[in-house]
């Protein structure tokens, strides 16, 4: 057995364990630490490892979900960083924490890393919280809500003839259907497309089914470099390419119907170097899935979001990492040999990460 040669980086690194808490509209019995703790325990148990086996720990979270500074500090108690650990945190989706850990693993000094992310959308008014991301001088004071902004992007896509409301509904129906097989998903049902299209607009042209749910959840992943990966899992999900890019924040100066940063990241990550079996995409709103899929260059043969994707569960700060964990799971169980995972951050797909995972064929 030998790991496929990576396109980006020199050292093969694999996702070897993944755990997540069920996405719920409101996790009330647990604070952030309590929501995270069982997830950390599970990700270690699955790998038959402990915190003492970790060379590095990196997390992703944001203070505005809880409305107070240093939420990542409290969360550390879910791991128990004692004796002291080499540890870092990004104020980004944990997919970028995984990237930071992957970079360190490239150097060959350490072989293992724990990555986790958590977020509770239930505590605040997420639309208003996310308005805090906007240019504080010219956009923030208007408090535009995230659904309206996504609707602007959806209209740009429709106007260009690149998608249809029918397609949005098909994406939602497929996501809910696939989520039936995912016990951690939140929106799981069989709803005919025709029925979805009868729903009223939340913000036109977005009907309610095109919106991601508000979710509370946490997720964690263990990365292992080199042959040690085989000690943890029979068929490691090797990261053969990973890259991320950002666009301008001035989205009035962008073409909203396309995602140039996703396309760039996909190219550098080498998505086009071989066939893709499945892709886990983090376009939280249905039209954004269309944009991301086109940017990555995935054709109709690729199974999109077999987990149900973000339309079935969208815990902030963890949803991107969950895409990577879900994609890796398909490699482990043999249902895919080459998978793509995508994560996004910022208003209207401003920043995007693309990762290619491969198992030996």
């Amino acid at each position, binding site marked *: 057995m030998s790991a496929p040669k990576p396109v980006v980086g020199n050292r093969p690194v694999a996702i070897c364990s993944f755990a997540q808490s069920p996405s719920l509209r409101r996790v009330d019995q647990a604070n952030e630490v309590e929501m995270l*703790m069982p997830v950390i325990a599970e990700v270690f148990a699955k790998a038959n490892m402990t915190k003492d086996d970790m060379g590095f720990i990196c997390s992703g979270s944001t203070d505005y979900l809880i409305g107070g500074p240093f939420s990542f500090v409290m969360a550390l108690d879910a791991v128990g960083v004692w004796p002291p650990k080499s540890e870092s945190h990004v104020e980004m989706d944990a997919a970028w924490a995984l990237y930071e850990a992957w970079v360190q693993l490239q150097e060959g000094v350490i072989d293992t890393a724990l990555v986790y992310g958590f977020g509770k959308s239930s505590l605040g008014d997420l639309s208003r919280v996310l308005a*805090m991301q906007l240019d504080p001088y010219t956009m923030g004071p208007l408090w535009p809500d995230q659904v309206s902004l996504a609707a602007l992007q959806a209209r740009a896509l429709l106007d260009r003839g690149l998608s249809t409301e029918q397609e949005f509904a098909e994406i939602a129906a497929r996501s809910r259907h696939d989520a039936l097989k995912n016990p951690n998903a939140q929106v799981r049902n069989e709803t005919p497309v025709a029925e979805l299209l009868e729903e009223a607009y939340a913000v036109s042209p977005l009907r309610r089914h095109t919106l991601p749910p508000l979710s509370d959840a946490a997720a964690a992943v263990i990365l292992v470099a080199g042959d040690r990966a085989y000690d943890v899992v029979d068929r490691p999900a090797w990261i053969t390419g990973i890259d991320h890019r950002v666009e301008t924040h001035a989205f009035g100066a962008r073409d909203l119907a396309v995602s140039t940063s996703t396309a760039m990241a996909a190219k550098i990550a080498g998505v086009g170097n071989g066939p893709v079996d499945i892709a886990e995409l983090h376009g939280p709103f249905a039209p954004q899935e269309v944009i991301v899929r086109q940017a990555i260059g995935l054709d109709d043969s690729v199974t999109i979001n077999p987990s149900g994707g973000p339309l079935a569960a969208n815990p902030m700060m963890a949803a991107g990492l969950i895409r990577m964990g879900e994609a890796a799971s398909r490699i482990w169980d043999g249902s895919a040999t080459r998978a793509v995972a995508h994560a996004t951050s910022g208003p209207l797909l401003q920043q995007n990460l693309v990762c290619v995972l491969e198992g030996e064929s």
Partner: protein
Amino acid sequence: MTEENLAPVTMLSTPIRLDYDFTAGLAQSKTLAGYAQGKFIGQRCPKCKQVYVPSGGSCPTDGVAMDEVVELPNTGTVTTYCIVNVPFAGQSIELPYICGQILLDGANISFMGLLQEIPTDEVRMGLRVEAVWVPEDELGPNLSSVKYFRPTGEPDADYETFKEYL
């Protein structure tokens, strides 16, 4: 129509208000329920056996839930302290005042508490103190139920007994 003689804009006021529905979580709620009854409720880690009060939900060194509830007494020791002379937002106590790190008897961690009924120049490390609770009808699920700590009059604790908790 135009006011050409106005000075150019250089400053912008952007008030922010976000509303949250905060949840304390399971472990913290046990401690909070104790405050509402005028009691200190701590939790013991099943692995390291240390007693934490208040508890945030997990043992900070072991990363496991602390399932065992431990009721702690009203008395403890001041491990260290500072005297606050600076006014800041949200403060409601007359300056100067003493903030002590209080190690309750039977606990393995100290927390910050207000010290009263002792002049600022008489406070010292090792001082024995007890909690004074607010009247029963004012008790609530928060540390404000403890009005303050005051000296018990016992001899000071030996430095050796609390030096591990600094």
